[in-house]
């Protein structure tokens, strides 16, 4: 899966589930979801559940950190790396 495809799906999820105000649409890839007030302390679990089911990856507890999940760019990179990891395991 291309990173651009991952990004499209991640953006669609965030758009449908976290972005309710019209003016927040088209979020910058480097913008912090926490700082923008889009994800609260419970919202992060929604995001993890989505990533696990939609990309068939497992998100380890230790990976649920802002460095991996707080921007769209970071999420895309994280998903790509996890998918790469499971692909190499499968190979």
């Amino acid at each position, binding site marked *: 899966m291309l990173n651009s495809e991952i990004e499209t799906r991640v953006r669609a999820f965030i758009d449908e589930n976290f972005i309710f105000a019209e003016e927040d649409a088209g979020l910058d890839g480097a913008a912090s979801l926490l700082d923008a007030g889009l994800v609260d302390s*419970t919202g992060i679990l*929604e995001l993890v559940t989505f990533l696990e089911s939609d990309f068939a990856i497992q998100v380890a507890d230790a990976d649920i950190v802002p460095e991996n999940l707080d921007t769209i760019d970071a999420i895309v990179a994280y998903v790509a790396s996890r998918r790469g990891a499971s692909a190499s395991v499968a190979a």
Partner: protein
Amino acid sequence: MCGIAGYFGTPSMHQPPELLLRRMIGAIRHRGPDESGTHVEPGVGLGHARLSIIDIDTGQQPMANDDGDVVVTFNGEIFNFVELRRELMARGHVFRTESDTEVIIRSYEEMGPDCVTAFNGDFAFALWDRRRRRFMLARDRMGVRPLFYAWRGGCLYFASEAKALFEVPGIDAELDPVALDQTFTFWFPLAPRTAFKGICSLPPAHRMVASPHEVAVRPYWRLDYPDAADTGALDNRSEADIAEELRALLTDATRIRLRSDVPVGAYLSGGLDSSIIAALVRQMEPKRLRTFSVTFESGEFDESAFQSEMVRALGTDHTAVPCRTADIGRMFPDVIRHAEQPLLRTAPAPLFALSRLVRDNAFKVVLTGEGADEVFAGYDIFKEAKLRRFCAAQPKSQWRQLLFQRLYPYLPALKGQSQSYRNAFFGAGLEATDDPLFSHLPRFRTTAGGKAFFSAEMREELHGYDALDDLRAHLPADFHRWHPLSQGQYLETAHLLPGYILSAQGDRVAMAHSVEGRFPFLDHRLVEFASRIPPRLKIRGLREKHILREAMGDILPPSIGDRVKQPYRAPDSPAFVGPEAPDYVSGQLSPAAIANAGFFAPRSVEKLVTKCRSGSFLGFRDNMAMVGILSTQLLHHSFAKDVAADIPATVAA
């Protein structure tokens, strides 16, 4: 306990004043179904709907003095009326009745408007002094009993609930955007503002004195804390001495709240506070105590095991009402009609069911543990603020932040939360330690997430308005000198307590079924005493309500006395979706209904509803937004004149 309504001035001549009063009282008949009465004279009209509790035979209202020139209509109780009556008789007053209402009249004759300072009670009353042409409204210190007013055509109208004011020709129900913004920040509008434009709430501990030429609304009491630097202002006695006085005060506060000519029951939540009150009553009353509680399907909310334990320990005659998630959805429109404000949580709904249970068992009065979390610092927000401040003092410390794990153990959604996300959430705004709202910033921020749903018109109307600045500007002048815990307690006690807990979750849902709640922890003697208890004795380490546990623990089973606070909560958005979802939800949240009301953006609400219905897990913000939007819509449709007809009436529970 009752409902009051009336006016000062000359109402417009659409209908005879007597009829107007009857209509106003009729709108709040649920508060006092036993009797009703009116008093009309030129320039004044007073109405009363009575729930007979004290002096059942001669306590009718409105009540006048011997000359008939002082007349009062009164909702609530003056718990120290026995002592006041004795004092007034010693001064030569002759009483015609056994009621606490007459004590108000005689106290006024003796002291004038300052009489309120002598009252220990939960009260809202209107008093007319014909000789001095003086009209007076007053409300109890903590805000237990409600009192609203509005001006139209130079005439002042007042009532226990806003719905009585809407009976007045020319007073219409229109939701106030600023009040909505405040509700989507604090959970309630800041008094005197209410959810409705032009309708004011007389703030707690205030009185209004009006003459034909002048109107003044002033506080007669204030919740106050010592300066943090002034250690001499604190209660510096030993912990044991403080605990002993606490126990004596709480015991007396409970004793005078048992004064009633009808039987008094108690709520038993299974938590520390209601257990203490029930145990105290058990010690004072030889008769078997009648207790009531609500239970939930989900273990996340249910406390029935602890309730059973207290029932066994005290040997009470107990009845519980199960509250299913679907019941909450069904009751919600009625709850909103009674609460008269948008709600961000459904927690008032189960209490609405509970008061119905009490009424169905022929009880009119219940004691509860309400107020202990404010007065003795039981809420998690106080512990959270203490930890956040502790972390802010050493921002680089990793181990300090580990303590965040100790917060909210009962929230499934926070289990398995990683440390760095905990730090990100609780650590946000740590640099703002000198913000007077520091303790509440995380809560306000999460709640304000719901503003993302406001429509473009709402945003335009609210342009430049900042609810947090509004609150900051109205804090007491010496607030910044108080201990941080005192500051947090003030925000909860002076604002959330009257604005939400005692109103939407208290008086309104209890009086919906003609039930009067009485709250020993909110006796002002206890509140004043507690404000001087050193903060370290309220939260010791992370043990909340430490001094209360020390004072009262020995009358409870250890498992209750040592129990960590579990806040009272109820299922939120799940009550409005799924196969058992009530019919009205789709109508109220349809894009057309949302657009018609104008407060929210239809497309944004649609996304939220879809998300909610998908069955995926909803976080705090989305839950609050869902409940807040739905309740705003229900409120608008219940009261706004132009739309009342276009949505089918909701089903009464």
